[in-house]
């Protein structure tokens, strides 16, 4: 039996320790906002926070998450009011949207590290997240906007 905390909720799961965290999230917990795309930590679509740090859940065995706190896109904010989510909506960042859960989780983690990220900070933090629709220009603008929203006393 494996125990971990996902989006604030304690979970006890009877799964093999080598199953990637991604598939536990998607198939056992039915939280499908976190996506599978490459399975090799090359694209970032599966990004979640593990004790606050962005990780690629497709290559993280569930055993590595035991006793830790996992946050997925569904748990980022209860009402989609996280500054990153608000900025993403203001700028209509998503196109197909498939990569955006991972983009948002990477961006949210960046803003906890750096309140006012530079373009270089954004490049460094976000280069692991591929967007095939090419929304990068809006992602960059939205991260700057989210930083401003966060400083402005956003909830």
């Amino acid at each position, binding site marked *: 039996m494996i125990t971990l905390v996902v989006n604030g909720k304690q979970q006890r799961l009877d799964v093999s320790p080598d199953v990637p965290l991604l598939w536990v999230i998607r198939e056992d917990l039915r939280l499908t906002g976190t996506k599978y795309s490459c399975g*090799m930590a090359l694209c970032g679509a599966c990004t979640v926070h593990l004790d606050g740090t962005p990780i690629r859940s497709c290559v993280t065995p569930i055993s590595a998450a035991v006793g830790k706190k996992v946050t997925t896109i569904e748990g980022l904010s209860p009402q989609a009011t996280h500054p990153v989510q608000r900025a993403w909506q203001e700028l209509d960042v998503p196109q*197909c949207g*498939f990569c955006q859960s991972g983009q948002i989780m990477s961006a949210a983690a960046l803003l906890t590290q750096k309140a006012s990220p530079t373009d270089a900070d954004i*490049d460094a933090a976000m280069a692991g997240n591929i967007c095939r629709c090419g929304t990068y220009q809006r992602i960059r603008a939205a991260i700057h906007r989210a930083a401003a929203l966060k400083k402005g006393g956003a909830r």
Partner: protein
Amino acid sequence: MKTPMLSRRALLKGSLAVGAGLTIGFQLPVGRGRAPLAQPAPGVFAPNQWLSIDRDGLVTVTNSVPEMGQGSLTTTTIIIADELDADWNKIRVNQAPADPKRYANPITGSQSYGGSRGVRDHMEMWRKSAAAAREMLKQAAANEWGVNVDSVDTEPGVVVHRATGRKLAYGQLVDRAQALPVPQNPTLKTPDKFRYIGKNLHRLDTPDKVTGRGIYGMDVQVPGMLVASIERPPVVSGGKVQSFDATAAKAIPGVKHVVQVTNGIAVVADRFSAAVAGRRALKVTWDLGPMAQVSSAQISAEYVALSKQSGQVARKDGDAEQALGAGGRTLEAAYEVPFLEHACMEPMNATAQVMPDACVVWAPTQNPGGSQATAAKITGLPIDKVTVNTTLLGGGFGRRGEIDFIVDAVETAKAVGVPVKLMWTREDDIQHGFYRPATYNVFRAALDGSGMPTAWSHRIVGPGILAQKGRMPANTTVDPAAVAGARDLPYDIPNLQVEWLNKDFGVPLGFWRSVGSSQNAFITESFIDELAHLAGKDPFEYRRALLGKSPRHTAVLELAAAQANWGSPVPAGRGRGIAVAFSYGSYAAHVIEASVAPDGAVRVHRVVCAIDCGIAVNPDQVKAQMEGGAVYALTAALYGQITVDKGSVQQSNFHNYPMMRINEMPVIETHILDSGAAPGGLGEPGVPPVAPALCNAIFALTGKRIRTLPIRTDELKRA
């Protein structure tokens, strides 16, 4: 300023959809009937299949065009809402089920979507449908008040009597309106009356896409469902199972079934990782077929050899051969482009449930109609017993118009008797795609004394997508997809010949965002640049001088040049290039500034795009499509290459089929040219001019002409 987003309340109200707010409204399960519009529920005004209004005034739009990122859920709703004069805060949208009789594209007659056809093929029909509804609501109100219909107007969501200011909300009129005849030729608004068209409205699907609530094919959950993955032949096509041993696979915990299907061996398990582990444990002997003899080196060599022969004539103006032999300056050049895979972020997948008397498919498909027909064929069921629910698509780009993943899901579900979610891995996706054709091109041109071209001869060697698929139009043997963007060269050249030699090695071909124009614009817009330089003329002015018969090309070219300050000094270390192309009903021109590092690495700094798509329904999303098209095209120009060795695709995932990333992203500036013409496409037209504009910029900077894609940085390295 953008309009406010839809209120959550309006979205939530009465939603049958999965999840909350705007999501894809799936058709009710099979067996519950599928004629809600033929006999609308009481209290619903449903004049046609595209919209309905309930007594609370909530408008429900049915969008037939799959949402693959292009914004169809929003654009369709804008068009209908505008002509209906709906209240934007009291609208929701559902995705249409497969039902070509109701929802087919009126131009193509099918419920398959590609070719950037969403707005341009449907806009008039949707406007008429909404205008008919608005006339009926006006008539209903006029009847209620006992006044002439000419004395009433509409404001968002209400009918107003001009003289008295009396108002009736649409919701109050649904029963009266439903009883009226549907006008066949309603009057459309004049563009000056547009309320939503031409404004920057927020996308309706954004809230679900920033919360993880949006349901893509991969996210579908059906009670009792198993998950399957198919072990496919090592060759890209033509491979068959000779024999297989599933003993070890079946011993993997969680593996429930192993069944042979058309495209390989399906391992069906209680979870994806078990299905993949089961695949690895299979022992399969493959009959590789003739594809095992095919390699990219051989394909290239045979293309070159064949290019010495003449091909089928796709266009012939004047006599290019004679003009080429008439003396004067001539230029010859050969261009080559590779096979490319779409690489949708969501790997192919579909979910199917096959029952004795019905079949249900949930799929991220561009081709609901084809999916339905395919499932009917496999199950032997009548077409009206097959329900296809189109989910959100995690990218489309043409790949999801194919039905191979539908075949996989339906065959597997039929074989095991329970619902099956059939998932591809990224490796399956890249190695078993439908590829943009690789071609080899030979150009010859002659210039007159002033440097202007008197002859242009373009010979294309390569396969044709429609030819391979057996979908050639009648009365021609020249594949239109192979020559698009080459045959319709806009330049005024008196002697012009375009030929096509069909050579197909059997690599499966597909429609890749902008199809023939994606490569032919690169080729032709690079070669015209070569001619400009040979003539010692400015590449922008040279094109302009040759575009006398193409005013819309000229207009976007001039706009892009002006916005990019063409002719002004280029920032130090950069080159500037330009290109223009028509595709899918729209005209696009790009100016690109790029630099090349000493190690040959190319950096794209700035992309200036001018687009004439006729009517821009949602300008912000026009820009989004230009941004996306540029990234798609730059990725291909910088990295894109699928190669085949002994019939197997050598690339497998994003490490060896790389995608452009945010740290490589240029600034993209889009300028919309409002020509007032009929609407053109947008998903594709932003792609074709990008690669040539980039390569022309690199030439301007380095003097090195790139004639083969992807760009080879080793050839740009400075010693």
